[in-house]
């Protein structure tokens, strides 16, 4: 009897593990589609839309250097609005610990070290939280495949991600991944009160060399406040020859071309 129970327990645990592994492997295929770009220079237009439909624009020039183990470097320099032009945010990502971040304030000529602990905080006043844009390293989440779903006529795998890092604003994230293209199409974020908070939609995927697929438009809608942010990428260039020296506190002081 005991032997039967132990075998049954082993079978149950194996099937659970298979489900998690299946979820992770599906998500990993989609994740890999967004990697391998080497480096990137892109102009980002972020439209902040309030519940009344009023829109403000934040324009930035973004540089990214892909590095081993997900420790990417990222430099964001504001182009608009005028009062924050040339303000720069430098991030050295760390999948295991808090990212290292610096802020360059051109009026004061100062580079200030800042805390990246507030992952749930809004980036640029948008509906994108810092944790939404700081790189979704695979090891930061656990994955469970919930099943299949249909999204606008496209068959998708439905994956539930749960953050493994501290200070996340989410308890879980439901992700729709296209079965035919292995691309993330939609994510739903549940907040710490277990209420649906935001919906993120990825559109206009474009293929780049080396099998890299990147979205040209990402929309994040806050279902609780009625606000929305739309992020559009233009003038995207990959493998432009960026180096680690382009991501230093000294390089923040110079306008990006």
């Amino acid at each position: 009897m005991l032997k039967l129970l132990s075998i049954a327990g082993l079978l149950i645990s194996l099937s659970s593990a298979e489900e998690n592994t299946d979820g992770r492997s599906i998500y990993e295929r989609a994740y890999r589609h967004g990697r391998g770009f080497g480096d990137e220079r892109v102009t980002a237009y972020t439209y902040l839309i309030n519940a009344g439909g009023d829109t403000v624009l934040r324009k930035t020039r973004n540089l990214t250097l892909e590095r081993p183990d997900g420790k990417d470097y990222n430099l964001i320099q504001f182009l608009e609005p005028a009062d924050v032009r040339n303000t720069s945010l430098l991030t050295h990502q760390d999948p295991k610990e808090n990212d290292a971040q610096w802020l360059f304030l051109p009026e004061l000529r100062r580079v200030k070290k800042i805390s990246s602990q507030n992952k749930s905080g809004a980036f640029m006043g948008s509906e994108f939280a810092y944790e939404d844009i700081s790189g979704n390293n695979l090891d930061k989440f656990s994955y469970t495949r919930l099943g299949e779903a249909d999204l606008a006529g496209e068959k998708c795998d439905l994956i539930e991600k749960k953050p493994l890092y501290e200070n996340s604003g989410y308890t879980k994230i439901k992700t729709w991944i296209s079965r035919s293209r292995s691309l993330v199409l939609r994510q739903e974020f549940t907040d710490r009160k277990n209420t649906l908070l935001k919906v993120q939609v990825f559109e206009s995927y474009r293929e780049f060399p080396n099998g890299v697929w990147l979205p040209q438009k990402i929309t994040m809608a806050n279902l609780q406040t009625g606000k929305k942010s739309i992020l559009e990428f233009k003038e995207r260039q990959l493998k432009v020859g960026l180096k680690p020296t382009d991501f230093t506190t000294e390089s923040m002081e110079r306008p990006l071309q």
Partner: protein
Amino acid sequence: MALAWAGPAASQSLELGRGLQLQSRGGVFAEGWFFPGDPLDPRQPDFIASLGGTQDAILTTPYHLDMRANGRIHFDPQERRRNRLAMDDLYLDYHREAFEARAGYQIVSWKVVESVSRADILNQDDWELDFMDPQKLGELSARVRLKSTGESNQMLEFYYLPSFRRAMLPRTGNRYDFFAGAQGVEFDPDAAQYDSRWRAWRPQGAIRYAANLFEKLDLSLFYFNGYRRFPTLAAEPSSPPGRIVFRTRYTPVNVAGATFQSVLGNWLWKGEAAYSSFENEVLSPLGTRVAPYLAYTLGFEYTFYSLLAADQDLGAILELTGDTDAGKGTARLEGYRPFRSDAFMALRYAFNGTANQSLIVGTLVDYLQGDLLVQGEFSRKVTDNLALKLQFASFALVKSDEMQPFRRSSRLAAKAAYNW
């Protein structure tokens, strides 16, 4: 040569063709200061209105060479001496991966703290324009920077300044006149005495090493040789009977120091220290030799995220600033030396919305002398280009002799700025 505006009309980026790009930003402002207290000197105003503007243009080329011109204008209809037409930056900047060279008028900041900087010693300040928040002045200098390539983030800089620029100090009639209310005292900030035969043409130099260690600690070490930026106010020995004439005295110093910044969770720790020694022998009014001293500012910043509402943060700052001569009377020093025993405390509430609203309240207290300064500021963007700011600065407690001229110069200020 093809010309094209890059982006919508609000953008300030102009493609000039052949890889040349001109980026610019600027703005205009109108500001009013009101002083509720009666002035110590009838020549001091109760109300000051100012207009001003800035324009900053950077030309980038495909030859690793940039050119920058950053100028400003300031107009005070009441006090002509507060009018300004200045170039803060006018330089050429050549930059490669491991090497940079910049020459011309430029402003450099080594500051990491929020209150009194011990490391910002290269540029002169304009105390006459705003004593409470002095504007840095561009200095003619050359800078060579050597940078590490690869993964480590290290840098070594060399500075050469061929000449010295005097401080711009408040004069008679300025609301922050150092000698307001003093009878029989004359002060001419332009009558400078230099403790070097080269006078303003004494060359100055600096070396600075900076590194980011393990992504957690930003550290810099620096050495400077040149005139101390803020002068000693020296009484002229040949002053006429019944009057004391004060002049400014600039003394060459050697300054060696360090700065650091480090983030641990929500805590940002930072500090500056500078060890200063006079190049020539400097005597105090009592005739004793003034010894070298160590000045420092150490502190932290802690942020409470989403404290009262989502995405609204409260930052708390505490800094101690002082030097190893704290407690000594001015008669035993080279002259009045401020910030020898002070504590700075501030709270900043940021609303973090598109209006960029923030409310800041801070105090600076001399814990030995008892002087207390309280400041506050509320700022908000009305549109993407228009911002408003309300400020107050109050000399809430004035106990020391040196602060007496300012005891009635608490002020309220309002500023509207339009940026493009």
